[in-house]
């Protein structure tokens, strides 16, 4: 599927020459180690004993009965160490960097989930770690900034551009250009130049592999629907990729519609974006008629990104996956609903996937099965939601 780093026409390596040799080196190392039994064993060891895998596939009985219709299963990535799926990738890449002899890690973060996961992996494996975070996000997520510092990472506030995730990636790439000889850039999603979209997908595909096995045990069949939120799209690719050849399994990626697609304040490049190059890959992006990148908007910082992984663009155009969108308000409702009905507070990102499942389930029969990727826990969002609801959790 990814020949020379392309998914159909999407992907590629649109980066300055200075970084190209490092990308080629990374590609070679990744090809070597992904097949190396020792590397796989070491990673599997950490995933089991440190991250806490496999994560449960939980049947949300009360929610299912409340909605009436298809059976809703939740893949509990929120139960991973550090509270989201991000550690699967951070750990894999840090381990790889170590094998490549690179002991310094550079990463970007939006809300801080990937930053915390990377700082954690770096602490575990004894690497130096620098995290770039937009000044706007530093203000919004001060607790995660402290967490990263506690884990020994240096947090660099990014004041260029829109001072959010997009600019944190720009700045991380600039820093990498200056330190490329001894540093590894640890991208947190299936975005960026080849080999990142492929490599991050592979490290996250443990999610889908487990789901496949777990659902067969529980239901004796594959799911009818896989539903995941899509910002850059790593939790969705991780869930989808082991099912790509199972044609009967429908895949739905849920983007953030923010205040509504028609308001222009959204983060839905697959729904209403156009083709372009951002952060080293050709994909769907939010841009104006001159090719300038437009700011994204979402209540959820993890989805607040004007681009998307190139493989998602390919899956959209090929029709293999469908991409829909959920507004801030719908996500907020789903956030409260899961808390009330299942005792699980989901991340606002994951609440987008859940919101779509809540819409879809009543139209399905009781035999049909939906798997929602609960990519992260919502502790980090409680303050935001509390402010929005005026301290009153509604029905």
């Amino acid at each position, binding site marked *: 599927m990814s020949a020379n780093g392309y998914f159909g026409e999407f992907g*590629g*390596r*649109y*980066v*300055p*020459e*200075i*970084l*190209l*040799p*490092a990308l080629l080196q990374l590609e070679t190392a990744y090809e070597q180690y992904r097949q190396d039994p020792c590397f796989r064993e070491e990673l599997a060891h950490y995933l089991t004993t440190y991250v806490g895998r496999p994560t449960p596939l939980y049947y949300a009985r009360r929610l299912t009965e409340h909605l009436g219709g298809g059976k809703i299963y939740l893949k509990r990535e929120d139960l991973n160490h550090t509270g989201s799926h991000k550690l699967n990738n951070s750990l894999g890449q840090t381990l790889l960097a170590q094998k490549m002899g690179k002991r310094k890690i550079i990463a970007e973060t939006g809300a801080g989930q990937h930053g915390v996961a990377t700082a954690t992996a770096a602490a575990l494996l004894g690497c130096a770690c620098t995290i770039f975070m937009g000044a706007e996000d530093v203000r919004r997520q001060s607790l995660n900034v402290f967490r990263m510092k506690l884990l020994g990472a240096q947090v660099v506030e990014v004041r*260029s*551009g829109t001072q959010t995730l*997009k*600019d944190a990636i*720009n700045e991380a*790439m*600039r820093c990498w*250009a*200056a330190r*490329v*000889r001894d540093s590894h850039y640890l991208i947190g999603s299936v975005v960026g130049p080849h080999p990142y979209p492929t490599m991050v997908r592979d490290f996250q595909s443990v999610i889908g592999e487990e789901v496949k096995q777990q659902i067969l045990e529980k239901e004796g069949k594959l799911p009818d629907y896989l539903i995941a939120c899509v910002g850059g799209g790593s939790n969705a690719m991780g869930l989808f990729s082991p099912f790509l050849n199972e044609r009967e399994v429908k895949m739905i990626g849920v983007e953030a519609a923010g205040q509504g697609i028609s308001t222009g304040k959204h983060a839905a490049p697959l729904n209403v974006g*156009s*083709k*372009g*190059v*951002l*952060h*080293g890959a*050709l994909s769907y*992006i939010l*841009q104006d*008629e*001159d*090719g*300038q*990148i437009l700011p994204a908007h979402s209540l959820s910082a993890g989805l607040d990104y004007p681009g998307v992984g190139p493989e998602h663009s390919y899956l959209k155009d090929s029709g293999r996956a469908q991409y829909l969108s959920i507004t801030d308000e719908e996500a907020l409702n789903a956030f409260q609903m899961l808390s009330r009905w299942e005792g699980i507070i989901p991340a606002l990102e994951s609440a987008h996937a859940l919101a779509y499942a809540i819409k879809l389930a009543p139209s399905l029969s009781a035999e049909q099965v939906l798997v929602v990727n609960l990519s992260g826990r919502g502790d980090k969002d409680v303050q935001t939601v509390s402010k929005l609801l005026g301290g009153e959790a509604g029905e």
Partner: protein
Amino acid sequence: MCKRSVNYWGVKPVSRIGQTFQELKAKGEKALIPYVSCGDPSLEFTEQLVLKLSKAGADLLELGIPYSDPVADGPTIQKASQRALAAGVKLEGILRMAASLRGKIQTPLIFMTYFNVIYRYGLKQFVDRSLYAGIDGVIVPDLPPEEAGAFKRLMDEADLDLIFLAAPTSTEDRLQKIASCARGFIYCVSVTGVTGSREKINADLATFIEKVRSHTDLPLAIGFGIANPLMARQVAPLAEGVIVGSSIIERIETNLTLINEQPDVVIEEICAYVTELKKAINFTKESGG
């Protein structure tokens, strides 16, 4: 060896860029290549500045088309791009300015921008309009040879120079790849990092330039980080050209209020700086060495 298109007389056409380097070589001079960010702070200012620079010592000129996310650029050019975009500069306006400049000066003009700007506009349309505006070459810092295919073909057909960059991290086989598709000159990145003024020249620069030279007969120009006449003078003997960007833009950044009131004063200051740079890179010649 570089693959140049051959016209139907069987003669390799020499672009205005190639010709300029040849003429300078005949005179024993190095090329000074200033970079300006179009529309910073207005297109009128940029046009006046470029006109004057062409008479103040600029042998070729790089016209930066601003982009919202310039990953190869340091803070100075980032801010210049933001100022231009905030002022509402559009690609159409820049193309019109380039055409107007071409009607007045013969200096080779080179666009420098990021690939998304070109991709969004349409590769063919961008090449056609650049050709029509009298542009001689294009530099795209995030378009390595591997990704250049379609754009390179269109540029070749239009006989425009697509200028590639070589970096200190480039391996021998990458330099070979770059040299095999380069036209005009090769842009040698003097630092491991992004654009912006540095305090001193990278100690390994001579070795790097030598390595690039072993793969090509094309002129080499050194850019990134050259912050003053002294540094320009130090690097000049290694190559055929010197590119200076950020230190020019710093003179715009610190004079934004003055530009509003008396743009000519600032243009004069920048021209004096460029003249000084031009003298510095040809120091050996002038001193009779």
